[in-house]
């Protein structure tokens, strides 16, 4: 309950900040650019390279990043950004307010065939099925059977979608985004809040080094749906902070060099789960992105 109140307070603060930001100076869209896109256009690109997303689920295989397609379409109001459709309610120079829908993220660790893994797939990504589930042993069990993991029946973790308002803003070189999403597919009935700030750090060798930091807050019912275990572990809410360092450099009209490292610390309610054996999820990639259409 206390967490709901604190989230409400944060939401109120966001609204206040939105009001003050509305007058902040911003860059108007006058030509197609990285920041601005022509209404009615779509883009398709594919990143080719080598990368990995570590899997914190016990016994889960890390997710390779080899071919990563990216698709987007922007209408006057409607847009779709990979798996996230949305409707923009307000698009100003500094602030954009939209209603978006976005898939639940945590399922990617349990099902290699999850749609989100299609957008970060390797040739082995379509093998389907779920990650074999084992539990990490408790200290007592570990003392008796250090190498013996106990197999548990696998609870269903279905595809979920969350929807809610999304506010993005730009203030000088700083950009930010806050989403407050509620699960709408009737499985977790949970909430998520996603917030991040981004800043270009330096120009290096013709490219841009940028940094991002933020957090994802997940309500207890969301965390429990993915990481809880009936009769064994009941999860509470979790706060996952993350940081990302990225570098990109154009390599001509169609190609761009991309490299990044993204590190997310899992909240205690997730890392304490018997199905999780790591505290961090690290995603790293180095490769080139080819713009098929933009």
């Amino acid at each position, binding site marked *: 309950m206390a967490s709901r109140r604190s989230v409400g307070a944060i939401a109120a603060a966001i609204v206040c900040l939105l009001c003050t930001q509305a007058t902040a100076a911003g860059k108007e869209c006058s030509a197609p650019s990285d920041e601005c896109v022509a209404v009615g256009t779509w883009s398709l690109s594919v990143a080719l390279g080598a990368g990995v997303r570590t899997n914190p689920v016990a016994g889960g295989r890390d997710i390779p990043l080899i071919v990563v397609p990216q698709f987007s379409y922007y209408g006057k109001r409607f847009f779709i950004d990979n798996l996230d459709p949305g409707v923009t309610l307000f*698009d100003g120079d500094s602030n954009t307010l939209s209603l978006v829908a976005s898939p639940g*993220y945590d399922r990617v660790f349990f099902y290699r065939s999850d749609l989100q893994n299609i957008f970060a797939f390797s040739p082995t990504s379509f093998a389907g099925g779920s990650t074999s589930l084992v539990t990490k042993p408790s200290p007592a069990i570990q003392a008796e059977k250090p190498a013996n993991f106990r197999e548990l029946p696998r609870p269903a973790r279905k595809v979920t979608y969350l929807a809610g308002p999304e506010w993005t803003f730009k203030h000088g070189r700083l950009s930010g985004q806050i989403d407050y999403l509620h699960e709408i597919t009737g499985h977790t009935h949970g909430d998520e809040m996603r917030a991040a700030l981004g800043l270009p750090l330096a120009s290096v060798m013709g490219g841009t080094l940028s940094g991002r930091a933020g957090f994802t807050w997940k309500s207890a019912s969301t965390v429990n749906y993915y990481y809880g275990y009936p009769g064994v572990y009941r999860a509470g809410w979790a706060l996952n902070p993350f940081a990302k360092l990225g570098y990109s450099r154009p390599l001509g009209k169609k190609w761009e060099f991309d490299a990044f490292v993204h590190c997310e610390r899992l909240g205690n309610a997730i890392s304490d789960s018997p199905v999780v054996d790591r505290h961090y999820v690290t995603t790293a990639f180095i490769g080139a992105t080819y713009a098929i259409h933009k």
Partner: protein
Amino acid sequence: MLLWTGNHIRIEAIRRGWVAFAMIAGSLLAPTARPAANPDAPDIHLEITPRICTLTGNDKQCATPVHAQWRSNHDESLCLVVLERPEVRHCWEHYSAGSYTIDLVFAEDVVFQLRDVSLDHVLASQALRVIREALQLRHRRRQPWNIFN
């Protein structure tokens, strides 16, 4: 429903009277308003195809072959030039017609001119217009959770 009254008819008659007066006056004054046609002056017509290039979407410039064609009632010695492109010049000596095709890349209007061989006098001119389709822009979504954003 339009009702014609006596006043309407009178106003219409007056208006028609003024139009007729203007036409007569115009026909009387026209010869004095323009210089008399000189039968020895060259009558040179220049045509270019296409006349318009429309930029759409993310297009930044036009790239197209442009065909220029001219004709005259006398043999002429002249050159076809493109303004602000000194590298483009094609000349004819003692011809009454000519044509020339050139591949051009341009983002602004391009003006074709026929000039005498000394390039001092413009004999005819045509412009190839660039029209930019009005682009409606919006902000691209920023999504820090997407690994490539």
